[in-house]
């Protein structure tokens, strides 16, 4: 199943932004995690700027090499193939730790071990069919984050056939690390889009970074007014990678039923860190809008917006 790379959030900015503060702006575009990435940064000196961007792209590539399911040689892909992994990268361990916290907080609604379910849906939809309930039940039996062991030897799945997908959190983590590298290189103003957004500082014209959330039903329109971004934003939606033409079944699956949640088409979460925002938007999609708000509050984040399947838009606060 080919994942179509549709970014849900749109960086809405005047381009090229007037660098009024005497800053130079530069941008790098490319492909990562099955989608396009964009890193925009500002700095007074072009040399420093380019060096920082080079480091940022390199960091993104190295995170991709560990976490991307699209790369058959990544640590994650190897873990899924072999059921075990020696000497896991600290990045992988960090992400798994974050995922575990969310898993515990949502009582299993957020569970990265849904990869067997995902595979089942992908294979069935490629044939133009849906998986049978029996097959779904079988796959659900393999979904259990508690069965992922991490110890001094490495990582291991306790049951054969288990698989991990970090798609619900990896892009956010990548955005965080890229932002950290930019900060370390002396950049104070940047907007990182690695599938999820992390913002530093402000735009060239001193206005805050603004991000628009694309309407999942009408490809070009936006949901409400643009979001002023200080910090990070993550959006989960049903049109990124759908298994059925009507998008009732898509890449976000409820680990407890094996089907996609019925109520939401889109959920956007704002948080101080992108990995957190990413995980919360995925988890919130599964638990539903009401519980998502409470969940976000526990982690110091907030729900920015959501869109239900029948098109209703809510922007709390």
């Amino acid at each position: 199943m080919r994942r179509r790379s549709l970014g849900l959030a749109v960086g809405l900015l005047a381009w090229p932004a007037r660098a009024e503060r005497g800053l130079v702006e530069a941008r790098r575009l490319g492909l990562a995690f099955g989608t396009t990435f964009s890193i925009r940064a500002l700095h007074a000196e072009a040399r420093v700027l380019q060096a920082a961007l080079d480091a940022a792209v390199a960091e993104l590539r190295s995170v991709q090499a560990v976490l991307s399911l699209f790369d058959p040689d990544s640590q994650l892909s190897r873990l899924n193939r072999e059921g075990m992994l020696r000497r896991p990268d600290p990045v992988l361990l960090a992400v798994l730790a974050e995922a575990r916290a969310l898993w515990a907080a949502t009582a299993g609604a957020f569970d990265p071990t849904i990869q067997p379910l995902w595979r089942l849906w992908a294979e069935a939809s490629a044939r133009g069919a849906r998986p049978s309930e029996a097959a779904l039940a079988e796959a659900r039996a393999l979904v259990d984050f508690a069965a992922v062991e991490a110890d001094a030897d490495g990582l291991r799945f306790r049951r054969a056939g288990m698989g991990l997908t970090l798609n619900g959190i990896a892009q956010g983590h990548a955005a965080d690390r890229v932002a950290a590298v930019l900060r370390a290189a002396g950049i104070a103003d940047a907007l990182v889009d690695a599938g999820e957004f992390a913002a530093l500082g402000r735009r060239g014209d001193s206005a805050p970074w603004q991000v628009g959330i694309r309407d999942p039903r009408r490809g070009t329109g936006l949901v409400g007014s643009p979001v002023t971004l200080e910090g990070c934003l993550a959006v989960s939606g049903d049109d990124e990678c759908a298994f059925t033409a009507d998008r009732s079944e898509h890449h976000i699956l409820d680990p407890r039923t094996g089907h996609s949640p019925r109520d939401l088409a889109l959920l956007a979460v704002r948080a101080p860190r992108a990995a957190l925002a990413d995980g919360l938007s995925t988890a919130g999609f599964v638990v539903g809008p009401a519980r998502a708000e409470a969940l976000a509050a526990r982690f110091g984040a907030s729900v920015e917006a959501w869109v239900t399947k029948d098109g209703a838009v809510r922007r709390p606060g």
Partner: protein
Amino acid sequence: MPRLLARGLILLVLLLPHAPRAGTLDRAAMERLFPAPLVVGEKEASPPVWPIFRTAMTSPELVAYAFESADLAPIPGFSGVPPNLLVALGPDGSYLDVRVLSHHEPVFLEGLGEEPLHRFVAQYAGLGLRQSVKVGSATTGASRGGSAAATIDGVAKATASVRIINESVLAAALAVARAKLGFAAGRDPGLRVTPREDAFEPLPWPELLRRGLVRRVAPSNAEVERGFAGTSVAGMDAAALAAPEAAFAEIHIAYLNTPVTGRNLLGEAGWRALQRDLEGGHHAILLLSSGRWDALGEDFVRGAVPDRVALIQDGLPIGLRDIGLERIALPPGAPEGRATILRIGAQAGLDPSQPWALELKVTRERGQIFPERVSQVLAAAYEPQPGLFLREAPDAAGGWRALAAERAAELGLLAAALALLLVALARQRWLTASPRGFALFRAGFLLFTLGVIGWQAQAQLSVVTLAGLVRAAAGTGDLSFLLYDPASLLLWGVTLATLVAWGRGTFCGWLCPFGALQELARQAAAPLRLRQVRVPPRWDARLRRVKYLALALVLGSALLPAPWAEAAAELEPFKTAITLGFDRSWPFVLYAGGLVVANLVLHKAFCRWLCPLGAALVLGGRLRVPDWLARREACGSPCQLCRVRCDYGAIRRDGGIDYDACFQCMDCVVIHNDRRQCVPLVLADRRAARGRGA
């Protein structure tokens, strides 16, 4: 000295570094090729592609993958160096642009110029990977056999070179498509899949169903209701709630191109009409909708693209259109309902031998003024029967085979003529029995060599091939470019074989079109009675060495950058005289023509003293074993007739033949067999006559 040179060259080949194959474009160059509003993204490592974006509303949209063919599919051309093409491939597998970055094909560098090459690659824009792109010969041009193949015009006299270029583009694009566009790994988009015409037997409707040639899908009301559960339109269908187990719809689908389905379902007349409609390689599917739900819908218009029906294969949608028939008569046993035939274009890339599915969209509406629509999709999967299709390997992979097949007649003629020559030379006594007869045979064969082997089949052997071999061997090690010119390959085979058996003379004296040109020019100029310039043996010996220098120059320059190699190769007048028929700029015509004119007084001066290919053949001829040309004991002691008569100075004082210089013109053999010319024979006859006489 030649041996020393040969050894030196081999050493050179082994020591020099291999030709570089890495991609040549850096970011700056890419940004020049793809200027604003396009943005060149970060280059991917594997496969080495540049993503190209367009910033729309500042959210970047991927518009193309750009890559160099030499990075992904370095196929050596005739110069031994792979052509390098920049290909921009859209995310849907269509070619957006193909440009030539570098090439070293001799035919485009000098002969035809670059213009035909640029015109050739411009044809790719708009074609797609789902079509197997073939190069038609410049004479036929039109698409052969249609199907999901697009044919682009070739370039006359450069057929082999452009086919290699086409292969490079296709192979590189496929590599990127498999990595980036999710083309199914096992499925080669270039593959031609056609239904087998012979797989037919008359079958009634129930049997068609039983064998899976017609597929029936009948979802129940309950199933459909489940699909709408939890939505705002749940429970709207009262009839469905009343009879949950009853069928919501009854759908039958079948792939019609195979005779066993198409003919059985549509009857003879209908089948023939359908085949006419599908000419050009299109596909057709039958969709029969009985039951409560109509797959087509009331507002369906004949000939239009259906709203509720979509076809998916490998997760990718394939376009459908109603074929526009008013009535379709189905065989008895088929349920009553609305039948339609849907047509799929040849270009869409459907592989009928692989499973596909029809997706049928069921929609419910709630509300009157601004109705709310909820849909679900029912899938009807179709598994084709094995054994009903022919899967043909793409033309590109067997490209040289196709080429050989095309030129089969020509190759047959060449092979026959070569066989005739070999037989004739082997039976030298018979061949030279009658001096006049032999002269006629020689003149005739030389005309064939010049006209057919040279101008028609373009099979003039050249030292450029040897240089290309050196380059290819030192670089990629891929010698398959030789297969693209089967006529030359045939000539090479015969030349090498006779080289070992008879020496260089077979090629130089009989099979070289330029040599034949010189000989025929001499014969034509014979009435002029021009005074021949005879070169003294010492000078002859010195001048002969010049050609080894020429050979060293050409082969050595093969390891230098291409422009040097090309310049060195111009020592040969063959391209001017034979490939282009003297249609070239005046300095080259002067050189080649001058050599032919000089030959009128200095017999085959180029061949004996300058030809680098000749030098190579002499070196190879050292492997010859038999001294096969007929000589007598009396030759050389004291008779010197043949030596004096030999136009090539190839007979030594002692009567032995110097095979390095012998062009096998057979003059000395004619003399040897002619009782009226061969001195020992004449003397022997006189003695016999005197003995018999008084």
